[in-house]
């Protein structure tokens, strides 16, 4: 029954996708309005199919229908409800199912948003591309990644194997994968419009405006997904870190890097009409990297190059990736000459030049992550040589790039477009730079060590001071010109240019994360000790004593918790219980760390072994500085993204009596928006 509903729904979605894609493509190619309108009708069909398939799977999971292989392998009778639901994305087939649903939702939302432009070939081609992508994923589920395969044995088992032990240990599992997928999948929309722009030859700024919101939404979800992933790994994996540069993490970082580059370079095209090919390439690369990431993480190629041929899915993904990359290259090549733009950049000290530098660094960052992830695979495949690349490489290569990006983030937002004068620079940078250097001096005086760390603290402060000055000057000008209170002035100022101020809020989040990464990568104190009952150990001011172990057994798992009393400076901070659990389905025990979080640092307790013959447990105690600011920074980035999505509200300009003050407000607003002031001596001429 559920299997029938599921398989029928998948077939429905795939049929809808192929029909819609073909009808739309034919209609758009012939400029036939009736075909284009008909093609759109298939979008709801795909959505209904996707919802039906996911509903059937959730029904099967929650009713423990072990006649389905997927349910049998990923759920057990004792699995708590939350992890029964999240089992949908606990393994390959279910993840692709979720991918299909999210994609169908994006396509439907896009079709709804552009309903008034259904006769526009740009929209029709874009929808056709989206449906083509959807077709690939639904075909994958009808082929090598069928979530509704029957269980092998003819007798339905009474109990399942349960989810992977690591995936039923923390509630973040409910949020991290869907967020990440919402990010990955969302980039299908800008990709489809980029391809549509290439096909229709309308690759001006139109497709950028059409996809600005979709790109932002996808980028926001991906950002949150990555941060939640780091948090999950910190709270669950128990080694005290949040980022191990493993291929799965790198796969999520890659599209984020190119997408972030795009978020910046898009402004150069909007303003100056330059970088058309580059922007198209970045969007296509972002989408291609989401597919590459899926290939790396889902085909088994990481464990061994030779493993991926065991499942067909790797081949399917690789072929799809090839089609995307080659198809896009051919399209760009065919349009080559028409894509050239006559733009120029007037001065290296301008906003657009800073964006170019930003893009260079993001591209280098992405290249580092890509090579570091893929090189071992290539070395093994081509030369049968086993090589590992890990944290030392990524640290050495990304730290200078990160410092460079922090520097740009401090300087670029105050640079005007086109050109700048030394007076403007001095005016806008002197105080923030002084703040940055002062912070450096203070941190060094308090014992900070490490070039990268000190640079990150100083540049972070430089950046925050610049953003603070930006807000302060704008609010001040509005208050003077319009006699508004601080709150109202700030609110209206943001409403007047949400993209700018939202972007600056995102920058605040990035600074928090950058500083937290610098601190935690440089100043973590860690000890691994064996403790018997009553013994204690002191680290970075915390005294941790072992009180004894407690064992609890449930149907889901059996857990040994070590009761650890934590004290600092004579204050009792309570008892923390890191634990080790064994799940009936898993062979290895899973440790669950216990973390005491504070604004300054986290005390991270992780049990590595239960009591041995001498009654000693193995425990790792780490004091990780500023970790909480990673998660706060992630939340601030999400908040900034939401601000960027708020529609801009234009206000009538001031006139008449307030005109004198109005000039000041205009000048200040221009300052904020990065415009060069009218009286600025460096402004020369109109644009070409």
């Amino acid at each position, binding site marked *: 029954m559920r299997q029938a509903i599921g398989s029928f729904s998948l077939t429905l979605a795939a049929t809808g996708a192929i029909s819609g894609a073909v009808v739309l493509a034919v209609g758009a190619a012939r400029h036939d309005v009736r075909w284009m309108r008909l093609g759109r009708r298939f979008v709801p069909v795909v959505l209904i199919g996707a919802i039906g398939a996911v509903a059937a799977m959730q029904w099967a999971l929650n009713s423990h229908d072990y006649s389905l292989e997927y349910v049998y392998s990923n759920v057990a009778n004792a699995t708590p409800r939350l992890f029964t639901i999240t089992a949908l994305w606990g393994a390959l087939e279910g993840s692709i199912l979720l991918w299909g649903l999210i994609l169908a939702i994006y396509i439907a939302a896009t079709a709804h948003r552009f309903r008034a432009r259904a006769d526009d070939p740009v929209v029709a081609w874009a929808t056709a591309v989206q449906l083509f992508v959807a077709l690939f994923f639904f075909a994958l589920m009808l082929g090598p990644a069928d979530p509704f395969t029957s269980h092998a044995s003819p007798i339905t088992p009474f109990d399942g194997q349960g989810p992977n032990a690591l995936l039923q240990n923390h509630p973040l599992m409910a949020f991290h994968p869907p967020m990440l997928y919402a990010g990955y999948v969302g980039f299908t929309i800008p990709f489809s419009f980029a391809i549509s722009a290439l096909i229709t030859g309308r690759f001006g700024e139109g497709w950028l405006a059409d996809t600005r919101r979709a790109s932002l939404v996808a980028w926001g979800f991906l950002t949150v997904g990555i941060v939640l992933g780091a948090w999950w790994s910190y709270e669950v994996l128990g080694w005290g870190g949040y980022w191990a540069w493993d291929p799965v993490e790198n796969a999520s970082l890659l599209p984020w890097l190119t997408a972030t580059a795009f978020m910046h370079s898009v402004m150069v095209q909007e303003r100056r009409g330059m970088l058309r090919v580059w922007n198209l390439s970045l969007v296509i690369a972002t989408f291609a990297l989401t597919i590459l990431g899926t290939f790396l993480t889902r085909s088994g190629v990481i464990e061994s190059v030779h493993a991926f041929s065991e499942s067909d899915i790797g081949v399917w993904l690789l072929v799809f990736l090839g089609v995307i990359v080659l198809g896009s290259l051919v399209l760009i090549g065919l349009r080559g000459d028409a894509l050239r733009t006559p733009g120029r950049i007037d001065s290296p000290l301008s906003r657009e030049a800073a964006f170019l530098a930003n893009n260079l660094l993001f591209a280098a960052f992405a290249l580092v992550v890509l090579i570091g992830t893929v090189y071992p695979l290539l070395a093994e495949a081509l030369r049968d040589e086993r090589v*590992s690349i890990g944290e030392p490489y990524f640290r050495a290569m990304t730290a200078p790039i990160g410092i460079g990006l922090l520097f740009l983030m401090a300087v670029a937002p105050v640079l005007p477009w086109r050109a700048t004068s030394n007076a403007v620079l001095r005016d806008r940078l002197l105080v923030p730079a002084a703040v940055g250097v002062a912070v450096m001096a203070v941190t060094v005086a308090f014992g900070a060590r490490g070039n990268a760390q000190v640079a990150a603290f100083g540049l972070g402060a430089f950046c925050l001071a610049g953003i603070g000055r930006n807000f302060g000057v704008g609010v001040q000008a509005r208050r003077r010109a319009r006699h508004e209170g601080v709150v109202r002035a700030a609110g209206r100022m943001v409403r007047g240019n949400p993209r700018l101020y939202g972007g600056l809020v995102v920058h605040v989040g990035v600074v928090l994360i950058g500083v937290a990464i610098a601190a935690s990568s440089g100043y973590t104190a860690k000890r*691994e000790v064996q403790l018997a009952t009553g013994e204690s150990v002191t680290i970075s001011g915390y005294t941790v004593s072992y009180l004894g172990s407690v064992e609890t057994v449930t149907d889901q798992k059996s857990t040994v918790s070590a009761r650890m009393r934590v004290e600092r400076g004579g204050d009792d901070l309570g008892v923390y219980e890191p634990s080790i659990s064994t799940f009936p389905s898993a062979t290895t025990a899973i440790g669950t760390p216990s973390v005491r979080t504070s604004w300054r640092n986290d005390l991270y307790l992780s049990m590595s072994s239960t009591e041995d013959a001498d009654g000693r447990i193995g425990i790792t105690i780490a004091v990780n500085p500023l970790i909480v600011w990673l998660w706060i920074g992630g939340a601030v980035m999400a908040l900034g993204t939401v601000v960027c999505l708020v529609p801009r509200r234009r206000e*009538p300009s001031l006139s008449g009596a307030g005109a004198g003050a109005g000039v000041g407000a205009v000048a200040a607003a221009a300052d904020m928006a990065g415009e060069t002031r009218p009286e600025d001596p460096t402004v020369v001429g109109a644009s070409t």
Partner: protein
Amino acid sequence: MSAGSRSRVVAWALIGIALVVVAVTVVVRSGNETDEQRVARLSRSLACPVCTGESVAASNASEAQVMRRQIREGVAAGRSDAEITDPFVVAYGDDILLEPDAGGLGAIVWALPVLLVAGGGAALAIALRRWSRAPRLVATAADEELVARLRATHDRETS
């Protein structure tokens, strides 16, 4: 030179001096790594032999715990980095090292990103130079008038 600009020069000079002092302090201080930092660095540079994609620092597998203990002992005994890691390379092979070899084909892993930044930076610099030499267009009164007229219509339509 006006009083305002002189005080600004002083301010920039102070910033410069402070930067130099900070840099010197940091460089002097970062020379000596503590034992704990050395253990952390070395265990990050070795792969856990029984895990996929985890370093000795990141893994809780018993093999990794044993290796961490051996590294700690090596550091305590004052052995060099190579003396500590070589036995692991002998026992598990070259791919136990997480840092690609800078020689041979592994060099491209290090060189490519550097070349990209250097090449891209040079290309940008050349393009900027060429652009800045090309004559700038100067707006005529007719241009200005056209822009003003379009702006006025645009404002009427959007407000």
